[in-house]
C-alpha cells in the first residue's frame, strides 16, 4: 500500500470556505486542480493548488431532497471543468484535475450521484493513463460558522472499487467476499493545509485578531441547533427511502423463499419416486433414478434475481453519517449545557 499525502494550499482552503459560506445553506461544488508528485517509492504527494466553482450548482433547483452531487453529473459542468483546465494550460499552469469539492451540511455528501460521478471521473482519468485517485473534498459551512473548520477529504475505498469491478456487482455474496459495508464506501484520507513561504510571512506579520486566533464561537450554547433540525429532517426523509428500498428487497426475499419451498416440494416428490422405484427393484441402476441436481430443477423453476444492494448501501451510509453528526453535536450540546448550568448555579 502506498501512502498518499494530500496538501491543500492555504488560498484554496480559504476560497472553498468563503464560497460555500457565501452560498450557505445551498450547496456549492467545483473541480479541484493540482499536481501529484512521487516523494519516494512509497509515498505520493498531491498538492491542490487551484479551485473553481461550477456554474450550475444545486442552488438553482427547488428540490431540496437528495441532491448533493447533482451538479457533478451535469454535462455542462463537466465541459466547464475541461474548459478551465484548457485555459489553465494555455496560461502556462501545469495543473491537472485531481478531484471535486462539495459543500455539504451534516454528512449529506454520501449520495449515489457523488459516488457515481467519482467513478465516472475515475474512468476518465484512467483512460488518460492517470492512475491517481479522484478525491472528494467536503466542507461543512454550518460548522465553520460556529468556529469549527470541517474540511475532510475522501476517495472511493479499495473494497468498493474491487466490488464494482467484479461481474456480480452489488450482490450480497460479492459484498461479503470483498468486505464492503455501508461504512467503507468512501475512505477518509489525512489532509494538511500548506502555506507557501510568502503566505507564511504575510500571516505571521498580521495581527492575531485578523487570523481568528481567539475564536470562541464554538462555546456558544445551542450553536448547532439549526443544523441539527435540518439533519433530523433529512434523516427522516432518508429513512423513508431506506424503507422503500428495503421493501423491494423483502419482496424479493418472499418470492425467493416461495420458489425455494416449491423446489423443495419438487425434490421431495422426486425422492419419493426414487424410493418407490428402489422398493420395486432394489437393483435399479443410478442412471434410471430421477436427478435432484440444480441442472435438473433449474429447467422447471426460475429463482428471482437478487436486486442490487447499491442503493441500500448508500442510504445506510448516509443514515449512518446523519446519526454520527447528531451524536457528536448533541454530545457537544450536553457538555456545554451542563457546564453553563453549573456556572449559573442551577440544576
Amino acid at each position: 500500500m502506498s501512502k498518499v499525502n494530500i496538501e491543500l494550499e492555504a488560498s484554496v482552503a480559504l476560497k472553498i470556505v468563503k464560497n460555500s459560506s457565501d452560498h450557505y445553506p445551498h450547496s456549492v461544488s467545483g473541480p479541484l486542480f493540482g499536481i501529484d508528485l512521487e516523494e519516494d517509492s512509497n509515498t505520493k504527494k498531491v498538492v491542490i493548488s487551484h479551485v473553481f466553482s461550477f456554474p450550475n450548482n444545486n442552488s438553482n433547483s427547488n428540490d431540496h431532497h437528495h441532491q448533493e452531487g447533482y451538479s457533478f453529473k451535469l454535462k455542462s459542468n463537466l465541459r466547464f471543468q475541461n474548459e478551465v483546465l484548457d485555459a489553465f494550460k494555455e496560461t502556462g499552469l501545469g495543473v491537472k484535475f485531481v478531484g471535486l469539492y462539495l459543500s455539504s451540511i451534516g454528512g449529506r455528501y454520501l449520495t449515489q450521484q457523488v459516488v457515481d460521478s467519482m467513478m465516472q471521473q475515475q474512468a476518465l482519468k484512467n483512460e488518460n493513463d492517470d492512475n491517481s485517485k479522484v478525491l472528494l473534498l467536503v466542507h461543512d459551512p454550518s460548522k465553520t460558522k460556529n468556529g469549527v473548520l470541517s474540511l475532510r477529504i475522501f476517495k472511493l475505498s479499495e473494497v468498493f472499487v474491487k466490488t464494482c469491478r467484479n461481474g456480480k456487482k452489488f450482490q450480497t455474496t460479492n459484498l461479503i467476499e470483498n468486505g464492503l459495508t455501508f461504512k467503507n464506501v468512501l475512505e477518509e484520507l489525512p489532509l494538511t493545509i500548506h502555506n507557501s513561504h510568502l503566505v507564511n510571512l504575510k500571516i505571521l506579520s498580521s495581527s492575531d485578531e485578523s487570523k481568528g486566533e481567539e475564536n470562541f464561537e464554538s462555546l456558544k450554547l445551542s450553536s448547532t441547533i439549526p443544523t441539527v433540525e435540518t439533519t433530523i429532517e433529512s434523516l427522516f426523509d432518508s429513512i423513508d427511502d431506506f424503507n422503500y428500498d428495503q421493501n423491494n428487497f423483502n419482496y424479493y426475499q418472499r418470492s425467493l423463499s416461495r420458489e425455494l419451498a416449491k423446489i423443495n416440494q419438487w425434490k421431495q416428490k422426486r425422492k419419493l419416486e426414487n424410493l418407490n422405484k428402489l422398493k420395486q427393484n432394489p437393483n435399479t441402476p443410478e442412471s434410471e433414478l430421477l436427478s435432484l441436481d440444480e441442472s435438473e430443477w433449474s429447467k422447471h423453476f426460475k429463482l428471482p434475481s437478487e436486486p442490487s444492494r447499491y442503493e441500500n448501501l448508500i442510504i445506510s451510509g448516509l443514515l449512518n453519517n446523519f446519526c454520527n453528526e447528531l451524536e457528536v453535536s448533541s454530545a457537544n450540546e450536553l457538555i456545554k449545557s451542563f457546564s453553563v448550568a453549573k456556572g449559573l448555579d442551577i440544576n
Partner: protein
Amino acid sequence: MSLEVPELHIVRPNLGALMPSLSMAPISVVIQSPALLQLIESSYSTNSNSRIIGTLLGSRSDDGSEVEVKDCYIVPHEEDGDEVIIKEYQHKALYQLYKKANPKEVILGWFATSPKIDTLTGLIHDFYSNTEGTKPYPAIHLTVQAFDENSNKIVTPIIGTYVGSEIGATGKLAASLGLEKSGSYFFNPIANRVESDLSEKTALSWVSKASNTESRKVQLPMGTSTELQQLATSVNQIDGLIDNISNYVNKVLSGEIKGDDDIGKFLLSNLTSKPSSISKESLEKAFNTHIQDSLMIEYLASSIKSQLELSAKLTNIIQDRN
C-alpha cells in the same frame, strides 16, 4: 485625495460625462482574504519576465467609491523593451469562465508582482481600461511586492493599490491635435485593507497554526469528532485566559503592580452578572428541558445506528444461507 495637480492637466479617471451619478473614482480597495493569498501565491508562477500580471475580479459598491477584490487570475504576457504583448485570448477565455461561475463579478483592474511603475505599466493599464476591461469605470492597479531590490531580500509581501488618471489631452482634444495617446497615466495610490468574515477567520486560524510550524503544514482533524476537539481547545484557551487574569488579580492584591480601574470594573460587572429577567426556577426548567432534548436526539441517533447495523447483518446472514 486630490487629483488636480496645477501643472498637469488631469482628467478625472471616472469619465464622469458618461456616468454622471458616479462622481467618485474608487478611493479604497477591499481585498478578501482568499484573494489576498491567491495574489501572493501567484508570485510563484514561473515567468521568464520580470513580473507576472493578471486580472482582478470582484465587485464595486453602488457609488463606485469602494471596490472589493474577490478573485484573480494570471494572464501571460511578454515584455520586450518598451513593448508589451498581452495574451488577450487567454485573458478573455478565463474571464468568460469566471463569469459563468460567478455572474456578478466584473473586471476591476489588474495586478503585477512588481512594485515598479514604469512605461509598460501605463500600456498594460490602457489594455485594462478599454471597453473590454473596466470602462466606463477607471481600472485599479494592484502591486504585490515580495522582493526588496535595495536589500536584495525576500520581504513580507506588501500590497499597493493605485488608480490611474489619464494625463494630458484626451478624447476629442487629442484627436483634433493629432496626438496618438497611449499609456499616459498618473498612478495615484489609494488605501487598501484586507477583510475576512467569521468563516474565513475560522479557516485562517488553521492557516495560522500551519505558519507556526517548521514545515508550514498542519494536519486537519479527521472523522466526525472535530467539533469536540475544537470545544476542548476553546475551553483550554478560556482556562488559560482565566489563569492570566487571576495571576494579574493576585499581583494587584499583593501590591506588586498597580491595578487598572477599567479592568477592575469590567471584572466586577461580569463576574457578578446573573440573569435577572428570569426566575431561577424557570431557568432551571428551561435547562432541564434542553438537556432532555439533547439526550433524546442522542438516543434517537444511536438507536437508528444499531438498527442499521442489525439490518445489514441480518440481510447478509439470510442471503448467505440461501
